[in-house]
């Protein structure tokens, strides 16, 4: 456990050091993140105005609150891209990682947390700026604000492991971009990225609810904004726990099979 903690700490530190080398690059990349919520907020503001002030029971201010919060949750649940894992497999980088007496996912989590810390002040500044342009309507409750923290952590872990597993598909498939593309289309709709769950067709919401997607990002956002009815919150945590458990199991199986495949054919 002490080793694990030291690895997290060192990976975190290295990423902070590494990112500080490319401040301009970091700033440009983070600014590119603004584009997406701005598009959604602009579109939904116009639509609510044309629909007489609300869409699916949400006002322009609530849409604004949704996407500003979504931006924060998205930042906390940003993971190592599956492409990065694929790149390691294809370029033999995994060989070096497999020689180490520790599962490489730990190092990735530590690095990823380092990235979050460095980028967080910029994300908060952008959120503040967006709140000035698109005034949000927040109705925060102390209890849901408190529950928001474990919901984000669980959402992050589910998403991180899912993306890692997806990246491991490169052990079997040479070109994985089609698979990743398909996955991210599903993520756009089912994580509440394109629109809040409450205004999507029932069948999409039903699919999102049984899939891990809703519990990655939409649930923490709906929780803190009070969109999710109080009696459904325990169900939400239950689904998060269930999907985390399932994804850890899938990771173990896929990792073992992937390493077997890697050690059988390439190395």
């Amino acid at each position: 456990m002490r080793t694990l903690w030291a690895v997290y700490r060192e990976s975190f530190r290295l990423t902070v050091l590494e990112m500080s080398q490319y401040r301009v690059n970091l700033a440009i990349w983070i600014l590119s993140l603004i584009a997406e919520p701005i598009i959604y907020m602009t579109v939904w503001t116009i639509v609510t105005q044309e629909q007489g002030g609300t869409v699916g029971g949400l006002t322009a201010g609530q849409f604004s609150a949704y996407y500003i919060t979504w931006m924060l949750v998205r930042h906390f649940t940003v993971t190592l891209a599956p492409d990065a894992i694929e790149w390691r497999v294809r370029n033999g980088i995994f060989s070096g990682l497999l020689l180490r007496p520790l599962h490489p996912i730990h190092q990735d989590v530590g690095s990823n947390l380092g990235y979050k810390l460095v980028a967080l002040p910029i994300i908060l500044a952008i959120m503040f700026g967006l709140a000035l342009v698109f005034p949000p309507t927040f109705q925060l409750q102390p209890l849901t604000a408190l529950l928001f923290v474990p919901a984000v952590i669980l959402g992050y872990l589910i998403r991180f492991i899912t993306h890692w597993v997806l990246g491991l598909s490169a052990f079997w498939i040479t070109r994985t971009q089609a698979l990743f593309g398909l996955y991210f289309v599903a993520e756009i709709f089912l994580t509440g990225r394109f629109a809040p769950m409450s205004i999507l067709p029932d069948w999409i919401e039903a699919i999102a609810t049984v899939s891990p997607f809703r519990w990655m990002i939409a649930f923490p956002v709906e929780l803190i904004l009070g969109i999710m009815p109080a009696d459904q919150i325990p169900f939400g945590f239950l689904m998060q726990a269930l999907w985390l458990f399932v994804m850890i199991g899938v990771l173990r199986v896929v990792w073992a099979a992937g390493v077997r495949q890697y050690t059988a054919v390439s190395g």
Partner: protein
Amino acid sequence: MTSPVIEIEHLVKTYHVPEREPGLRAALVSLIKRKTREVKAVHDISFQVQPGEIVGFLGPNGAGKTTTLKTLSGLLYPTSGKVEVLNYQPSKRERAFLRQITLVMGQRNQLVWDIPAADSFELNRAIYGIPETEFRQTLQELVELLDLGPLITKPVRNLSLGERMKCEIAGALLHRPKVLFLDEPTIGLDVTAQRRIREFIREYNARYGASVLLTSHYMADVEALCKRVIVIHHGRIIFDGQLSALVDRFNVNKTIIVRPGDEPIETARIAQYGEVISEENGQITLKVPRDQATRVTTRLLTELPITDVSIADPPIEDAIEQIFATPDEAVPAN
């Protein structure tokens, strides 16, 4: 008698390589039915390495050297045969095993590019759970042995290839492995850097009693470090023994160095005695069949106006070249 550190018995490693004819039709057919070809990278090899030994593992490209090293370090699963390193089965990749070995592959970068190597070393310390005092001591020793000095505090991207390789090697040895698999550790380096790394490997071996299995295309590495060599060709071991025996066994020629007297000798005249390899600094070097060397030398001394003559073994490269140029079936098994 001590038990071997590395033990391989009848190792076979076969790859299934996708195969396809060129052209659109073949591409479409391959979408439905994939054709694969079996490639035997390593074919029934056996050898042992004793504690503290430095063994050169030689062979041309594609001979099976890297496959064997990867199998020994647990990166490849053997198709059949027994592989043991430090009494572990490498393919199980147990943590206790991984903590005691290292595999250095030339030009494979494990250090973080944008930050100093010293920071990457800290991550290695955490991953291998090296106690702080031991880590500082080992690092200090490695810095001294590899002459790293200020290099480890410079961003890796600002280092030259040789400097980076030295840092890579230091990073790979911080946990003081007992077994080192070195795959072309001096590839692409200049002569000075090559010598430095060679000296380091020798010193590390002497200081820690580590066993080393080394592949290199530079015979200077092998000559400087390895008393014993294993030669692999087309996945089979064709020689395992002392380096000197390799030369005796496979060198079919000798070189005769002739120093003419005051009277110059025409090249055409001396070429009657053997193949003229070079003419420089007033001396002529001839290559003659090994079994004729004594007779030719006697003839040279009696028939030509020369002041001095000496016989030597040709460079070891010639022996290796000779082996690799020999068709498979003609190479005697060891």
